[in-house]
């Protein structure tokens, strides 16, 4: 830990470090939770069943369950934050040019934020139950 800041420059460095400290703590807490969330997600969807049997009907049925919506929302949010912050660490480690760093991070954060919205919509904005009933009414089409 650095000494107490005595100049504006040092203070700026320290405050930046505090924000970084918060991310540092977040990576460990979210990482710990993600172990359970991701391992179970993979077990249910890749191990317990043959993943090649996954199709629209399977996903629609899954996303119709309330607990799946809540579970996957936590997984989505934590994974997106953990993943984009990890990508930020990597960009900052390997790219020195400030402009390159800025644009790479801008792209990563924009894509991650956009896909987070896509994920939230896919989880909460549609009634797959109704879609599924409609499909069953006309018979399974492909």
């Amino acid at each position: 830990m650095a000494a107490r800041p005595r100049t504006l420059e040092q203070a700026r460095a320290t405050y930046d470090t505090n924000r970084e400290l918060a991310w540092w703590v977040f990576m460990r807490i979210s990482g710990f939770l993600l172990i359970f969330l991701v391992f179970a997600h993979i077990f249910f969807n890749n191990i317990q069943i043959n993943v090649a049997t996954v199709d629209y009907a399977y996903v629609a049925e899954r996303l119709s369950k309330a607990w799946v919506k809540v579970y996957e929302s936590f997984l989505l949010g934590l994974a997106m934050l953990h993943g984009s912050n990890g990508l930020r660490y990597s960009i900052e480690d390997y790219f020195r040019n400030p402009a390159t760093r800025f644009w790479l991070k801008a792209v990563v954060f924009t894509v991650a934020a956009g896909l987070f919205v896509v994920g939230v919509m896919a989880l909460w904005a549609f009634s797959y139950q109704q879609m599924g009933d409609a499909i069953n009414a006309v018979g399974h089409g492909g």
Partner: protein
Amino acid sequence: MYRGREGQWAFVLHRISGVALALYLLLHVFDVGLVMYGPKGPFNVFLAFYHQWPFRIGLILVMAAVIYHGLNGLRIIVMDFTSWGIKYQRGMWYGVLVLTTALGIPILIKVVPEILAGKA
């Protein structure tokens, strides 16, 4: 801890698996998001494409990356939050590798025959 010894390899693998998983996550959310277009939408076409064997081998690598990254993440947490973690980090890394293999073998036993059998 670094300088080309185990700690450095643990870091390099953590970095590579982490970047790979982050990129996979983006693709995965995009692809599952296609479910919003309904049963006649592009979702099933996309999935059928990804059920081909090269991508299923890719999924095995994703699972390996998840297991390694998760277990090594636990090692990092132990190193950061206990007084004894750094002392035992090398042994813990070998533990991570052994556990990754131990969890990977039953997955291979389950998944490889599915791939060899073709589409279920």
